């Protein structure tokens, strides 16, 4: 049976080149980068090259890149680290309702246990945060604004540069979770005026368990864990060199292949979206144009997401849903609800995220299978009314 992987927002396969570099840094160049002998120095050299690759991917200086265990740690470090470093200035944080849980739950922790106040900015129907809302929410006590660059569920790309400008004018530190964006679209920390930015390896064909936090020179931040003097005292622990060089190679490839990847997945995405929307009573979620080139997210009326996922899985297709039934917590996607979808629409959502290794044949196969699955489930649905839309 054909197997089609359409869940690149969850994770990507690791590139062969990346695996090769990593293998070398496990078998041959295995030293501890803190050691002064040549074994250690070789490992450090590889690590510093990786830092340069990651820095160039986002237009930063190498010394502004700190390696972490992934996007979640980067987000935690940015939010808690800045909030605690600026506790004398104030206790107010601004974020948006559609952030990743790594941001939202860190904010909730600070609210509940540390006496911080958090403003959760709303989004419009397309999942956009308004820069004016950011401006209006800033107070003298605001220590941090954190807004993601591109949303993991619906792919909406924020007007980040405008938000960055607002923050700069108000002299408020600005962080952005760019885990989905970096490697997928051009990202430049200068153009966007961000002070901190979270990145992850496994969303850009690198390994899992490694990420980075960009910290603009001069930004006040405290570590969130304590130990040795690694990463210029910003993040303790012997650096995970194999993962780090893997991330570096993934970043290098992403930068070199950016244009061809973007145009390929964008073409596939548009073909996929128009194919899926051929089925009646379906609609696109997220912004039609300010959107990650690889993201499609549709809501299918009268059917529930998990049952669609199971059927697609049986057809060899891997994707995801914002349905309550697939979310462990049994709440439908907070992102879709924040965009104003009702429970039923969120329940019937389907996210397919493409990768550059997908082909036109993959997309056409999915488009071919999809209507039959929807039909079968609709025939079973007590909500479906033939010829009589809700």
């Amino acid at each position: 049976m054909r197997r089609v992987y359409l869940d690149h927002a969850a994770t990507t396969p690791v590139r062969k080149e990346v695996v090769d570099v990593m293998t070398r840094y496990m078998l041959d160049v295995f030293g501890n980068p803190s050691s002064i002998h040549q074994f250690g120095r070789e490992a450090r050299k590889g690590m510093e090259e990786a830092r340069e690759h990651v820095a160039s991917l986002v237009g930063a200086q190498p010394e502004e890149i700190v390696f972490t265990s992934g996007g979640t740690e980067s987000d935690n470090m940015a939010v808690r680290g800045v909030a605690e470093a600026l506790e004398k200035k104030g206790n107010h944080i601004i974020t948006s309702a559609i952030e990743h849980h790594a941001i939202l739950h860190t904010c909730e922790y600070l609210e509940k246990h540390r006496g911080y106040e958090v403003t959760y900015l709303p989004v419009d129907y397309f999942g956009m945060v308004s820069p004016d809302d950011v401006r209006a929410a800033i107070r003298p006590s605001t220590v941090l604004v954190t807004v993601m660059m591109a949303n993991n569920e619906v792919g909406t790309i924020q007007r980040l540069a405008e938000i960055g400008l607002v923050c700069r004018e108000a002299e408020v530190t600005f962080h952005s979770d760019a885990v989905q964006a970096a490697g997928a679209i051009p990202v430049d920390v200068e153009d966007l005026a961000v002070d901190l930015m979270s990145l992850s390896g496994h969303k850009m064909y690198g390994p899992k368990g490694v990420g980075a936090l960009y910290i603009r020179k001069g930004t006040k931040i405290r570590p969130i864990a304590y130990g040795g003097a690694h990463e210029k005292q910003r993040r303790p622990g012997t650096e995970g060199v194999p993962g780090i060089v893997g991330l570096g190679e993934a970043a290098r490839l992403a930068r070199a292949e950016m244009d061809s990847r973007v145009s390929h997945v964008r073409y596939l995405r548009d073909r996929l979206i128009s194919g899926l929307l051929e089925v009646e009573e379906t609609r696109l979620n997220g912004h039609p144009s300010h959107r990650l080139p690889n993201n499609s997210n549709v809501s299918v009326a009268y059917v529930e997401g998990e049952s669609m996922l199971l059927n697609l899985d049986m057809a060899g297709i891997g994707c995801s849903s914002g349905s309550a039934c697939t979310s462990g917590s049994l709440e439908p996607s907070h992102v879709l609800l924040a965009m104003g979808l009702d429970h039923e629409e969120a329940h019937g959502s389907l996210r397919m995220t493409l990768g550059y290794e997908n082909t036109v044949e993959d997309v056409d196969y999915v488009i071919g299978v999809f209507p039959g699955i929807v039909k079968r489930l609709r025939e079973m649905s007590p909500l479906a009314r033939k010829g009589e839309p809700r």
Partner: protein
Amino acid sequence: MYNEKVMDHFCNPRNVGEMEDADGVGQVGNPVCGDVLRLAIKVKDGRIEEARFMTFGCGAAIATSSVLTEMVKGMSLEEAMEVTNRMVAGALGGLPPVKMHCSNLAADALQKAIEDYKGRLLRQEAV
């Protein structure tokens, strides 16, 4: 995540569809996740002769609906009133813990359908 029996009922659901001449109908929404099940029964001589379902829900919701329609066939109304969500899940060989609540849908819809049937009887007698 689901066992073979669950997947079998999900892929080949038994007794799906509406029932034109139902004796009792129960529709419930799951307060936990928002899924919906409509169950229709046909009753003869105090026993459930046939059951059919329509479900908007996850794999577990569809599979429990399906297995329920098989389970209750031939049961007396008294027996059917005793059916619990654990029994339904058990008939499927178990459900993942996070999916146990889905089986409530089936048990609740069954009770509602029986109550609906009894209510109709009472109204008929009153006429």
